[in-house]
């Protein structure tokens, strides 16, 4: 029975899952290719050595930040479309006429969708760091022997931040699913999802430090200079230090626990709403 439900879910959602994976990962691949083939784009990396790799490799950590903010729209889309099409075309009635509890059906959908969100987030985080490092290695001034430790530290920081990125994405995914369950029209569900995303980002930016620099550390600035006359398209005032890097994504426990709790509450509410939902 569960295999059949998973089969149905995969068939109905695979295009949307692919879209989500592409949204998170395709920009990394495109940027990597662009940088690999464009001299201008490669310029900031060209002068890097084992000693200075910490100056630009942390740029790859922009990906978890984007996942926790801009890409939440994609998680919201996935949450709404996991449930809304079945309500709109009324095929939820067909499932309701099978001897399977709606709670179980909804739980399977949430778990399967949540797994896709989590995998895509973690994969994108690893891909961004690995892609950036591969480009640096390709410049031949950065060596594996001299910089693999920094890469590992960077990867650890990325994975650390992926915990938060995936939790926030899951909040938006389950919250949007709840909006889809409650709203009588798809566009209302979409509006609900967007409101949830805006609220999440505002809370996140106010209460969570993405790069919590130590109080006595040297200030760091970041500037971007696009244009053909300026080969240095991105400038960082100073490299990060390893101890600063270790703190990336290392938030206090309470926001993560609160996020986990909120995600569980949303998921339980979705199953409850569907269990009692009248199918008109």
């Amino acid at each position, binding site marked *: 029975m569960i295999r*059949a439900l998973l089969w149905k879910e995969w068939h*109905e959602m695979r295009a949307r899952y692919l879209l989500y994976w592409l949204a998170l990962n395709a920009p990394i691949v495109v940027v990597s290719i662009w940088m690999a083939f464009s001299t201008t784009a490669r310029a900031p990396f060209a002068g890097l050595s084992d000693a200075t790799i910490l100056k630009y490799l942390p740029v790859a950590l922009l990906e978890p930040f984007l996942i926790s903010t801009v890409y939440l729209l994609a998680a919201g889309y996935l949450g709404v479309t996991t449930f809304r099409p079945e309500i709109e*075309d009324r095929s939820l009635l067909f499932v309701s006429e099978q001897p399977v509890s709606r709670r179980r059906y909804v739980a399977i959908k949430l778990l399967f969708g949540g797994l896709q969100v989590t995998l895509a987030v973690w994969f994108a985080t690893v891909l961004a760091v690995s892609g950036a490092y591969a480009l640096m290695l390709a410049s031949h001034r950065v060596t594996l022997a001299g910089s693999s430790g920094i890469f590992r530290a960077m990867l650890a920081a990325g994975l650390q931040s992926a915990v938060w990125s995936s939790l926030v994405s899951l909040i938006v995914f389950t919250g949007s699913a709840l909006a889809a369950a409650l709203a009588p029209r798809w566009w209302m569900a979409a509006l609900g999802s967007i409101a949830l995303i805006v609220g999440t980002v505002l809370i996140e930016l106010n209460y969570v430090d993405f790069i919590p620099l130590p109080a006595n550390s040297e200030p760091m600035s970041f500037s971007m200079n696009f244009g053909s006359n300026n080969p240095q398209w991105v400038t960082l005032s100073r490299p990060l230090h390893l101890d600063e890097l270790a703190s990336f994504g290392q938030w206090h426990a309470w926001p993560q626990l609160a996020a986990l709790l909120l995600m569980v509450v949303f998921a339980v509410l979705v199953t409850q709403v569907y269990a009692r939902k009248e199918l008109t």
Partner: protein
Amino acid sequence: MNAVETDRLTRIFGRVCAVHSVTLQVPEGAVFGLLGANGAGKSTLLRLLAGHLKPTSGIASILGRPAYPPVPARWLRLGYVSQSRYLPAWMTIGQCLDFARAMRPRWDVGKVERLSRRFELPLDARIRDLSRGHYVRLQIVLALAHNPEVILLDEPTSGLDPAARRELLSMLIDEIGLRGRTVVLSSQLVEDIERMADVVAIMDGGSLVATGAPDALKGSRSRIECASPVAEADLCAVPGLVELRRGPDGAVAVTNEPDGAIQFLRARGVEAATVVAPSLEEVFFDYVNRRPQ
């Protein structure tokens, strides 16, 4: 024991009362026909019985348990053919049958194969591409595949041409009628109901206006044709009078007490009064268009 029961079942959508205080009992093994015009409330009543809709008041029960809230295990004993299309459009017929088979432990593989052959179901065709005829046949296969004890059929023949309708009804009678299952069948076509049902209920404006065996219903609206002139006062006093019509050939009194009416008229010297048995269709129109006050 009654397989299907409702007690003052009511469902209101906004300001529209789609089903109004319907009380009915369908004994096990009976074929119960719901007859009504468009918008009479038949589909809503069946959706209430299926547990898809929550009653505004009253209760519906299937096999001794309330239809709402829906209990998944009930679908092991219940089959439902809806009037509307909601099977997943992207599935092929084969995929749809395989999916339903995985869901239902009592799936009768041999029966499904036999029905699929008899219904000439194209297993590779996508559901979105199916004609109304094939779609209904697929729904019927899905509804019968697990040998349910109760089957709800919501206008299975609507939208079919007369030949397809006749063929489908024959198949339904073969597959359902002879096997002693409880069936609730709705239709706006009197012929369909008359062919299949043991008990007929006529719905109008969300209410049940008449219930009984087809012959009993016909008896409830007998026509007394009076060839010779009859005094107005006598006609109006005919026992069980439901309606009085006057035509060029004389008066017609529609009554639910034909024997009493004949005796009454003959006692008043009206010898040229005869009882004409109405068809179920005439009875249906009597109830639906000219309900007695």
